[in-house]
């Protein structure tokens, strides 16, 4: 691909995303009346969400075709909705607002464009769509592009629809199709676009909070205040997207040989690094020491996302994923947690708008029927519901955030009563059901791997690991908390917060132990019930036995008493995480539960403003609270999945906690810089700068490492370029298949995260079986896969044409692919294909046969 066409691709992609965003500006203006920025920074995600939803829903209902025409029509509907929002003089209001806020808009747009171009440039230095889960994501995008209708075909299990939260991929596929960029290039452009959208959204949120805060304290807006907020806005993307764990600093220290001592035999040992117990870093560095981190035969940048190590009672390390946004973008997997980021921030903006007294359905009426008639309700449900379809884990979290904000607002005005709890649950339930209802066709074909909640008896996060991960964010968060403790919190309020925190921790711990004991006891009760004559009790008994055994298996057969005792002892021996969280929660609860402000003269004054608005700083504490709850929960419980560990729970919960705390840290930093004076200011500023530098160490060194020293030698955005270079035969075969009519293709089957399934991944044609491990995860088991793994082996290895033909017919195969990977995986008997099937493509190492009479119709 030439440089010019790469630049054209970048421009076209950004223009398309911007056009969709521009269309949604009137909608954002209408949706966020209480925010100074009117949600303009989130117009792109809002537009993409609406466009994607309309296209997908109407496509699922058979009204729109999964083609460009359908996309154009869906876009037309968004335009009409937007134009409708400009009626009744609103276009004049919007025009006036745009003129007044031109400078802010220019900053947001400049930031977005700059981030997009910069990151597209970075992506071009390491654009390969390979390793980790990139192939899976590209396979989804290609599959959506090639499917004639929704739900899209599963690229790795022919005849089945995708069983995964795939909405993000629908949006990328739509952008790919309309911009006419090759999907492997679009993959990298989407990564840059998502980063740009997230950066703009973060800027907008921090700008809004700081400006609202400044206005609440200083009355009317002034140029100075706006300048302060415009500058503070940059802290949003800085904290959430750029700053990272301090693991980067540790890499420097490790490479420099700090704390390592050579013993008599010259062997390096270190008590510090052993105590730290982070894999790779607990091994001696290469000599001579040179302070520049490097790791031969491994990805240096990978370790940052695997700082945490769960330790079994037997002393075995279990991998835990602790990704943070910069790592995710550096890795550049377009995984659901990355895809969801702009949309989760859209939800945060909805919550902020509600908190600031926005024209929400909740404020207009408390009757359900009135809600259903309210467009605002459906918009909220649409945005929240999308999260389940983009990254299911985020759905309950953000529904919870939105409902908590409302319940808290009522608490502020009406005080505590049990009705608040009911109100919280009712809102959550109604909003949740509405969110599910809007995306109902998705749930029809979705099989979740989630299998309930398990107590985390053995596993907990060590304090040092927790601090390595979150230190950069915790410093401003705790700084803000302490500032409140010192200036705004009475002792009784502090104790009230402490009391609630203690109750929360005690309840969580108690539930964990009781639940754990109960699960262990299943091993005993289950077999007794299983022999019951009552069929229901018998089935229940069998299930209990199975569950109890599985749970005991997780704990390697250790006796229940020992596991339960150890779970307590471990927490007492390494209290760093929960003590940290207890401190943060105590102050946060104290601040949030306070209903009156303490002012000079010791008189209490209601903090609810005359126009019903609340102190926006409290919203920051709600974010801190949510971050804390998301990190305290996996200390006691985790969601059961195929892995049986808390790997994914930590991954998904900590990632969201990073966003909440990142936003709070950004706002907190701005507010503390503004308010602190004297020695406190000096201490904070020193700490702030130190943590900032520590947080920047990772991006600096890892960006350099991953881009091979910012090498421009092979710069391209084409994610398939490496195949063209290293395996041109395969590349040309894939190009041929990309243009061939639809149909099932067979290829070698192998493990996850490898090069297997590369043909279906890059051509968009479904294969009989791709990565079996992933299929099993998506579908919660291997029932659908049946005997496909063995059947494909038989197909390639048998010399008997009739036997091969049976496999071809069973799976309605149209194309048989024979490349180097097939030859190295199987003892391929090519003769039977050559004698019986037309060879439709061949080069020196690749053969593609077509099975006559297979029209491409897919069947399970």
């Amino acid at each position, binding site marked *: 691909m030439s440089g010019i066409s790469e630049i054209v691709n970048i421009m076209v992609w950004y223009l398309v995303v911007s056009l969709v965003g521009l269309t949604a500006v009137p909608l954002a203006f209408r949706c966020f009346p209480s925010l100074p920025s009117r949600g303009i920074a989130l117009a792109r995600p809002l537009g993409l969400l609406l466009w994607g939803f309309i296209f997908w829903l*109407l496509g699922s*209902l*058979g*009204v*729109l*075709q999964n*083609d*460009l*025409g*359908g*996309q*154009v*029509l*869906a876009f*037309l509907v968004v335009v009409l909705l937007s134009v409708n929002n400009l009626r009744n003089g609103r276009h004049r209001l919007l025009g006036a607002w745009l003129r007044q806020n031109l400078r802010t808009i220019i900053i947001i747009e400049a930031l977005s464009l700059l981030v997009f171009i910069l990151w597209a440039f970075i992506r071009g230095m390491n654009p390969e769509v390979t390793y980790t889960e990139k192939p899976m994501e590209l396979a989804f995008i290609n599959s959506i592009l090639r499917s*004639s209708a929704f739900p899209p075909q599963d690229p790795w299990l022919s005849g089945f629809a995708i069983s995964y939260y795939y909405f993000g991929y629908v949006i990328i596929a739509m952008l790919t199709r309309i911009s006419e960029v090759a999907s492997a290039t679009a993959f990298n452009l989407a990564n840059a676009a998502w980063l740009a959208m997230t950066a703009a959204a973060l800027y907008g949120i921090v700008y809004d909070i700081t400006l609202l805060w400044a206005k609440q304290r200083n009355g009317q807006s002034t140029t100075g205040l706006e300048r302060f907020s415009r500058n503070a806005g940059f802290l949003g993307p800085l904290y959430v997207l750029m700053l990272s764990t301090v693991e980067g600093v540790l890499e420097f220290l490790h490479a420099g040989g700090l704390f390592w001592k050579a013993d008599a035999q010259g062997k390096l040992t270190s008590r510090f690094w052993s105590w730290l117990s982070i894999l790779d870093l607990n091994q001696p560095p290469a000599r001579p020491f040179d302070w520049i981190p490097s790791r031969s035969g491994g990805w240096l940048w990978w370790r940052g996302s695997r700082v945490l190590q769960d330790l079994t009672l037997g002393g075995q390390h279990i991998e835990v994923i602790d990704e943070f946004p910069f790592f995710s973008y550096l890795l550049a997997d377009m995984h659901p947690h990355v895809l969801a980021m702009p949309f989760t921030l859209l939800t945060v903006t909805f919550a902020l708008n509600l908190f600031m007294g926005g024209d929400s359905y909740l404020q207009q009426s408390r009757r359900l029927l009135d809600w259903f008639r309210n467009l605002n309700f459906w918009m909220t449900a649409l945005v929240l519901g999308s999260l389940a379809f983009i990254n299911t884990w985020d759905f309950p979290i953000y529904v919870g955030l939105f409902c908590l904000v409302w319940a808290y607002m009522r608490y502020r005005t009406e005080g505590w009563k049990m009705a608040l709890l009911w109100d919280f649950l009712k809102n959550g339930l109604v909003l949740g059901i509405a969110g599910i209802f809007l995306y109902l066709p998705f749930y029809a074909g979705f099989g979740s791997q989630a299998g309930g909640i398990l107590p985390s008896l053995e596993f907990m996060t060590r304090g040092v690991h927790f601090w390595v991960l979150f230190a950069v964010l915790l410093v401003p968060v705790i700084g803000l908390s302490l500032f409140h403790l010192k200036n705004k919190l009475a002792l009784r309020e502090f104790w009230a917060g402490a009391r609630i925190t203690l109750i929360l921790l005690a309840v969580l711990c108690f539930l964990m132990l009781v639940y754990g004991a109960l699960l262990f006891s299943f091993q005993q009760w289950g077999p007794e019930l299983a022999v019951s004559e009552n069929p229901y009790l018998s089935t229940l008994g069998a299930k209990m036995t199975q569950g109890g055994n599985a749970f005991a298996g997780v704990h390697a057969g250790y006796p229940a008493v020992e596991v339960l005792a150890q779970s307590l002892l471990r927490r007492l021996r390494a209290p760093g995480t929960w003590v940290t969280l207890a401190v943060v929660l105590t102050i946060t609860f104290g601040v949030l539960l306070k209903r009156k402000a303490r002012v000079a003269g010791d008189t209490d004054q209601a903090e609810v403003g005359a126009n019903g608005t609340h102190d926006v700083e409290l919203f920051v504490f709600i974010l801190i609270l949510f971050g804390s709850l998301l990190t305290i929960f996996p200390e006691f419980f985790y969601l059961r999945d195929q892995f049986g560990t808390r790997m994914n729970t930590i991954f998904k919960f900590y990632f969201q906690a990073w966003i909440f705390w990142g936003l709070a840290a950004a706002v907190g930093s701005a507010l503390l810089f503004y308010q602190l004076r004297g020695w406190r200011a000096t201490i904070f500023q020193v700490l702030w700068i130190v943590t900032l530098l520590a947080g920047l160490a990772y991006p600096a060194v890892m960006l350099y490492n991953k881009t091979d020293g910012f090498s421009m030698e092979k710069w391209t955005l084409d994610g398939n370029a490496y195949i063209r270079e290293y395996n041109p035969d395969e590349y040309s075969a894939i190009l041929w298949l990309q243009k*061939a*009519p639809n149909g099932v293709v067979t290829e070698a089957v192998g493990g996850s995260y490898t090069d297997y399934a590369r043909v279906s991944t890059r051509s968009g044609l479904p294969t009989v079986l791709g990565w079996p491990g992933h299929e099993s995860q998506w579908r919660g088991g291997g029932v659908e896969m049946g005997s496909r793994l063995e059947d494909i082996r038989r197909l390639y290895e048998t010399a008997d044409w009739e036997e091969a033909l049976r496999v071809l017919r069973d799976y309605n195969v149209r194309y048989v692919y024979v490349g180097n990977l097939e030859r190295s995986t199987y003892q391929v008997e090519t003769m039977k294909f050559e004698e*019986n099937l*037309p060879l*439709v493509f061949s080069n020196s190492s690749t053969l593609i046969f*077509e099975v*006559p*009479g297979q*029209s491409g119709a897919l069947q399970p």
Partner: protein
Amino acid sequence: MNQIHGTRKTLSLEFLVYLVVLLAAGLLRFTHLGVLPLNDHEASLALQALHLNRGEQVILSGEPGYISLTTALFYIFQPTEFTARFWPALAGTLLVLVPIFFRKQLGSTNAWILAALLAFDPVLIGVSRSAEGGALALSGLLAAIGFGFNRRPVWCGLSLGLALAGGPGFWPGMIILAVILLIFKKGFQHHEGRSLALVAASAGITLLVISTLFLTIPQGISAFGSSFVDYSRSWTGGNRTPLVGVTTAWVLSVLPLLPFAAWGLIQGLVRGDVGAKLLGIWAGASFILALANPARQLLDLYWVSIPLLTLSAIKLADLITGFTSENRLIFLAEVVLVVALVVFSFMNAVNLVNNPLQNQEEYRNRVIGVILPLILLLGMTVLLAWGWSGDATRKGLIAGIVILASYTILSNSWKAASLGTRPEIEIRRSSGAPVGLGELMTTVADISRFKTGIDHRIDVQVVNLPHPSLEWALRNFEQARFSTVHDSGASPAIVLTSEDQQPTDSASYRGQKILWTVKPDIGSMKLIDWLKWSLFRTAPEERTELVLWARNDLFPGGTIP
């Protein structure tokens, strides 16, 4: 009383004129409508209607109106060439009534002359006889404008909805309309918001109802989006038909009217007439839009025809209203002179073009035969004007030219209506005319009858032949399969391949070449070729052939090795 009687008389005469024009338009559009087989372009659309009619899943292209209406027709009647082309022909016929809406603006004489020109325009006839949505878009949009001018918002919306469903052909019309509205916005009356809402609502409902065939084909509405995509893509992709070829074909098709249109336009501009300016911009914009598009086709120039014909109609009306002359004899003499001498000159020109020249002397005689009658005409006209009556001579000259132009238009219309001797050489779309249909169907039906006793029962496999016209032709066969590779295992009775392919077990088959499509190779045509095409519809041809393979055992004594 007399006045009322006079009005009635005028109305009935006008009614009669429109009726005659409508009949003529209908004749030119419906006569032998189903004779010519559908070409690839037409068949690709008709097949979508056919698949929908059979309840099969199909991805609809951007012509929802044509596809859904044709599906309905296929449901009521049989899927045939006639039913596939019915709706465009009907829309093209009704187009001649559009000038009625503009009688106030044009004047009643201009309006009926325009109606007549619309009926006989070769480009409009071509698009009306083509199985596609262009005629629906054109007639719908013009009717919408007409109803709009006459303050009928609901009908305006209905027509607009029909036009919107008309496919990619709608968008250039919409662009031109937008350009005109932008330039002449002050000249148009502003409509109330309620009227616009009514127009929008009725257009939206019509679009929904038509494109989805009363909501029975939901994805039809999606095809409306595809129409925009198809039009946009024509600018980036397309088959890149030669610009000179398309322009020449168009000029030759509308040649008799071009001078009148140009005359009318220049005269109007000189007078500062807003209408002439508007029509000029319309013609220019649509001409550029049609020809600048890389996927340009002769039939896409139908948006140019409307202003061109309107300008011509205005000029022609201006000329023929003054034909009454005191000196009828001179008038008639001049008419006879013009017709006779120009025809004589033309015959010599035809001879010069068509017959190979034997020698220099014959060539000289032919050239003299072409030039001399024209010099003679010039001399006689000058003498008549000088010696008898200048006014009568001028009118006679014009009347003669109008008669000759009318004859040429009629001739072109006749050919455009596929009523000429070689309809396959008409330049329409880039798809060739499937001239081999008869031979193919006869051969296959013979074999089928011989083998199964029924014409359409034998199994036919079409291998890697991307010709929708072929799929359309085989639509009634019970066992016709289309694939990219030959299924030797199935051993089909008849295999159709391209001429460079053969069945994998070719020893079991006997092959027969069939000329499948023919089309004029306009890329290679020179001036002389264009003249021949214009006069006799002969031209260098592009041909595609296919091979019909019949299994050996289908022939008496034949066996499979």
